[in-house]
């Protein structure tokens, strides 16, 4: 029984990171109707931002960790806006496929630029937050796991708040529903889209840093696999749907952990994750929480 709860916790902390990345995918999709494949590489940049900041910030302090998190999120928000401005905006009226291929191009560019600038050798990530171990009825919980779950929940609610309760959020939803009508009522579409990218990239940065805190070895290709998993999570939950992305991420993390912990099935982990995706697309194409009629952001 203890093993079951331990695995559940392991799965939730892994799933929380998938959820955090999935939120960024789903938000950009919600507004622009396209998958930003460069998202997983912004995730990598976020981790490297944390790595370099770690040299200036004392390790094992909460304020230091939060400061690094905030700066990494800002750096990636700016990066996201630049990517959108240079790579996607010129293609605003082009077919979706062109933008999609451009996104893959940007992804490859960031990966190779990362190998060029940071070097391809994996680097150890500093312990930015203080690390303590809690033991609760035989279940071991590391403070880093709690930080991951906590930050993911906080960002999820902040995102919900921004989208549903603020002026810019209302504008985002308007652009999502009908960009032309939105601009007719005086919404600056470019600004709203830039903001969406900034927000999504900031989430990716947070995901990257939390991932690196939990698995302290970073390299320029570190975003590829988690990014792919998060994409699956976003589709599972219903792409474009914010709570759906979180739910999909957690579900995927838990399923993967239980498969990994099983005796004979661990090598089928990725096969099972993607089989889940195929099944979902076959029987419920809109995802767990998604629907075709509901407005999405």
């Amino acid at each position: 029984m203890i093993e079951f709860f331990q695995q559940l916790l392991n799965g939730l902390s892994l799933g929380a990171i998938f959820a955090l990345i999935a939120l960024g995918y789903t938000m950009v999709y919600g507004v622009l109707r396209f998958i930003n494949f460069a998202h997983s590489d912004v995730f990598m940049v976020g981790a490297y931002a944390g790595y370099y900041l770690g040299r200036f910030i004392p390790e094992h302090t909460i304020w230091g960790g939060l400061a690094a998190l905030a700066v990494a999120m800002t750096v990636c928000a700016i990066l996201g806006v630049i990517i959108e401005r240079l790579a996607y905006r010129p293609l605003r009226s082009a077919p979706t496929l062109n933008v999609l291929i451009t996104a893959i191009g940007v992804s490859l560019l960031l990966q190779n630029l990362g190998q060029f600038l940071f070097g391809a050798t994996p680097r150890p990530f500093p312990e930015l937050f203080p690390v303590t171990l809690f033991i609760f009825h035989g279940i071991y919980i590391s403070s880093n796991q709690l930080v991951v779950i906590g930050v993911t929940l906080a960002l999820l609610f902040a995102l919900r708040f921004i989208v549903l309760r603020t002026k810019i959020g209302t504008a985002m939803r308007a652009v999502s529903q009908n960009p032309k009508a939105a601009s007719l009522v005086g919404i600056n579409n470019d600004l709203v889209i830039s903001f969406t990218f900034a927000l999504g990239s900031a989430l990716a940065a947070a995901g990257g840093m939390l991932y690196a805190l939990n698995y302290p070895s970073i390299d320029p290709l570190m975003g590829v696999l988690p990014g792919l998993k998060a994409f699956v999570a976003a589709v599972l939950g219903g792409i474009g749907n914010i709570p759906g992305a979180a739910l999909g991420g957690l579900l995927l993390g838990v399923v993967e952990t239980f498969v990994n912990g099983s005796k004979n099935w661990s090598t089928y982990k990725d096969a099972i994750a993607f089989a889940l995706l195929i099944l979902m697309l076959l029987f419920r194409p809109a995802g767990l929480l998604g629907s075709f009629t509901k407005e999405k952001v």
Partner: protein
Amino acid sequence: MRLLLATCCIAIFTLSLRAAEPIKIGEFASLTGKQASFGQTNHRGAVFAVEEINAAGGIFGRPLELITADTRSLPGEAATVVKKLIARDKVTAIVGETGSAAALEAAPLCQAAGVPMITATATNPRVTEQGSYIFRACFIDPFQGTVLAQFAHHTLHARRVAVLVAAGNAYSVGLAQYFKINFTALGGQIIAEQKYAEGDKDFRAQLTAIKALQPDAIFASGDYVESALSCAQARQLGITAPFLGGDTWDSPALIAIGGSAVDGSYFSAHFSPEAKELAVQHFVHRFRARWGELPDTGSSLGYDAVSVLADALRRAHSTEGAKIRDALAATHNFPGVTGRITMDAHRNASKAAVIFTIKAGQFVYLETIAP
């Protein structure tokens, strides 16, 4: 007299002209990417060996020229660069790779082209089974598996051991296999074998399953990144059993990533700079003067691979593939810095292994186990 002098001059001139034509040695190594830490040190060892040989006058008067290609730690890349080394650079012989997976890609190509290949650190037995032109300067995984199983059983007194394997990695799967066979033969019990995908970073699920079985020790045959991360996560899950690993652990990055979690772990290796032999100490001294760092397993085996090849070239007195192959196969009791090297019937070096432990963030030499 003057005529004689002129003839001498011409003779020397032609000789030096011929001497200027170098013997090309191809090297393929993971200089960047996941296994860069090994590729880099291996490369420094090979470069150092070539420099020393050339400073001493080369081989039958001709200098060695090392042509290096990067495999970027990517699957498929080794085959590509080795094809290039053979076809375009027309190398006489090839040294590399550090990893078994990459060496396995290149070995059939070298065999087909009749170019002798000697790997410094690829320990999977299948590498030299690819053909008569493929050699290695290190011991093989069955021996390493035996050594680690003996160590776990006799020194650690472990009886129930769990195994953590990187499925899909030839080295990891092979080493785990030999460890299991030998450990059960000694009367020990393998209580669990958990697998993960190569490159995974989360091992909590596998470790939680292992923890429930309460092993005496955990044998992790994956690379240093995976093993360091799994040690750290094991400690966070409250697992106190010691970890054991193979020669791929021998990298400073293991400690940088694993931190205090890798303290008290053990691994087998090819070489210890703390060994007392005079030849080793001289090598350590010269190497440090050249590169400003202590030689490790990778660099000393890289050095030995080139030295063994140079020795064979010298004895063959030819750059013909078949002759070099025969000379390599006849290598007997060659005084390498990692021990006396004799090629066995399967073209593997038979030599001793050393066991290291990690104490307060330092590799500490424990013992040497002879074959």
